[in-house]
């Protein structure tokens, strides 16, 4: 028997469900909607959108919805993972404290920051000043360096022991690498790269929203029946928590089991890529160049503007594919996702795969000679013009 079907007498063939279906599973064939079950995930988006109640789910499909497997009430508190690199806290930790504070106040529970590595006294203090009620600091020299094995193992053990209801980490190279392992160990849900988080107070649930399908849709995701509810959070989207002098909090210093600190990977060396001022993921200002630059030498223009604004240099995939600039500068779906305060796109058309990597920037400036370029749809300030004239002029005006 089918799991989901269209009641043909009721279907008006309006096509609303076709538009709503995130999985492209519905087609209108001879004025009636037809659902391709091999593509359908039973998300029910179509059922909810249909005005004529023409889409039905079988009892079997309803029964396929998951049931609680743990005592949900045993889990309390909001945790954030305070990522550090070489002993320096990443600013994503402060952003997580910002959103974590709101969530924990809504739930009326404590906010805990989890910190790994030795010699982190100052960082622990900073986390308290910025809103952590408690810092769980695993003070082990092995944890100064990131390894998937040790980080996942130690984090899993802490979570099993203390049972937080929510665990957040930055959607950074580190967070998106080891947090999925933690979720798999705990067999719980994890939502990647969230741009919005809220609490449904009635149900005591974390409401997680993220872009998917190349940014064409936003999805709101829940983890109703397992704990903790876990999410990675896009860097630079959430407001950083402010430091408050004299704020009190508890710093709990912990040790890990020696066997939990073992890692199968060994770090041979780290090669920092300093060539273009700062890295784009942490930058507050990014100036990006695309195919419109025409040739590699013209990236000098982009660098100059970036320098004046103390920003980093980004690029479209077209520019990277041409070999004009290394891949580590690529912004977009197959590159890096960035969310700076200011993003300036020069000679970039604004393909959806580029937009998804930068559309959550606060201010977007587009410089493009084609007035129809889609980049203008997301631009706070759009300049229709030749970048070879506008960019140098802008550099002069900003300097002057």
């Amino acid at each position, binding site marked *: 028997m089918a799991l989901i079907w269209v009641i043909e007498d009721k279907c008006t063939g309006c096509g609303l469900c076709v538009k709503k279906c995130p999985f492209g599973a519905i087609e209108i064939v001879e004025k009636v909607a037809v659902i391709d079950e091999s593509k359908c995930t039973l998300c029910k988006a179509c059922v909810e959108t249909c005005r004529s109640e023409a889409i039905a789910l079988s009892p079997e499909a309803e029964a*396929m919805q998951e049931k609680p497997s743990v005592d949900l009430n045993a889990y309390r508190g909001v945790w954030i993972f305070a990522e550090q690199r070489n002993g320096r806290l990443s600013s994503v930790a402060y952003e997580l404290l910002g959103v974590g504070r709101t969530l924990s106040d809504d739930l009326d529970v404590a906010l805990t920051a989890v910190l790994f590595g030795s010699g982190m006294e100052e960082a622990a203090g900073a986390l308290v000043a910025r809103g952590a009620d408690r810092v769980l600091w695993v003070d082990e020299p092995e944890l100064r360096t990131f390894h998937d094995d040790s980080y996942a193992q130690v984090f899993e053990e802490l979570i099993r022991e203390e049972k937080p209801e929510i665990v957040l980490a930055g959607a950074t190279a580190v967070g998106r*690498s080891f947090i999925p392992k933690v979720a798999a160990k705990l067999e719980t849900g*994890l939502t*990647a790269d969230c741009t919005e988080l809220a609490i449904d107070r009635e149900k005591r649930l974390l409401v997680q929203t993220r872009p998917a399908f190349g940014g064409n849709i936003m999805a709101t995701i*829940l983890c109703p029946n397992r704990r903790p509810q876990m999410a990675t959070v896009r860097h630079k989207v959430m407001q950083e928590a402010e430091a408050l002098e004299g704020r009190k909090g508890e710093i709990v210093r912990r040790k890990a089991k020696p066997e939990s600190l073992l890692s199968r990977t060994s770090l041979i*060396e780290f090669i920092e890529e300093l060539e273009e001022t700062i*890295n784009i993921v*942490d930058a507050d200002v990014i100036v990006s160049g695309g195919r419109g630059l025409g040739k590699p030498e013209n990236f000098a223009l982009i660098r100059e503007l970036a320098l004046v604004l103390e920003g980093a240099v980004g690029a479209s995939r077209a520019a990277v594919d041409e070999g004009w600039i290394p891949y580590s500068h690529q912004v977009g779906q197959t590159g890096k996702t960035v969310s700076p305060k200011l993003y300036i796109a020069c000679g970039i058309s604004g393909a959806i795969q580029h937009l998804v990597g930068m*559309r959550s920037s606060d201010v977007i*400036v587009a410089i493009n000679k084609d007035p129809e370029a889609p980049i203008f749809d997301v631009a706070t300030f759009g300049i229709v013009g030749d970048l070879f004239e506008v960019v140098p002029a802008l550099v002069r005006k900003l300097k002057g």
Partner: protein
Amino acid sequence: MNIVVCIKQVPGTAEVRIHSETHTLIRDGVESMVTVFTMGPPQAEAALREAVSYGVDEVVLVSDRALVGSDTLATAYAIAKGIAKIGAYDLILCGKQAIDGDTAQVGPEVAERLGIPFVAWVRKVEEVGDGKIRVQRMMDDGYEVIEMPLPALITVVKEINEPRLASLKGKLRAKKLEIPMWSAEDIGVEEDQVGLKGSPTQVMRIFSPEPRGAGERLEGEAEEVAQRLAERLKVMGFV
């Protein structure tokens, strides 16, 4: 060496090529046997045929209604079961992320399920052999050189290689090849750990992103628009 490559057929298959092709770099260095693995609807077979045309040795399709609706946890569980059924493997390659869901979670979760070491964001394989692999991992501020024992799983970024072209021989083989299709039962998954039932996360709502409010167009001579933009950026505190 036995290498398994995990691919996903996504709407608009333009990119499948890159995912399925990530094995070439390694294959060209070592005598190896490459199996491409996918889980998806029966029509994902097309992606596997494409992979065969590029020269992979074996392909496996896992397809079953019971798996529909699986989130990353359930998907990773089923993929791990499928790979375990393939048997001996030294290296598993996954793309950094599938371009529809964009989660980047399935690779690390598969590694965890299989209990093998894992490195994400690999941009280069420096060396493989003698029971270990040395790779470059792209980080936000540079890259790390990392070594780990095999068997292992890596997720690779676009920079890993240039896809090779399909060969005529490959295309012919792709056309004729019988593609094995395994069911949920074949790979031995527990029924309550896959599909919607086995998926802790649930999609509650799907909506279009809010358009960013219509911006301001600055038009005129370059000097003039640059002046106006510079003023605005100054007011906003960027200078």
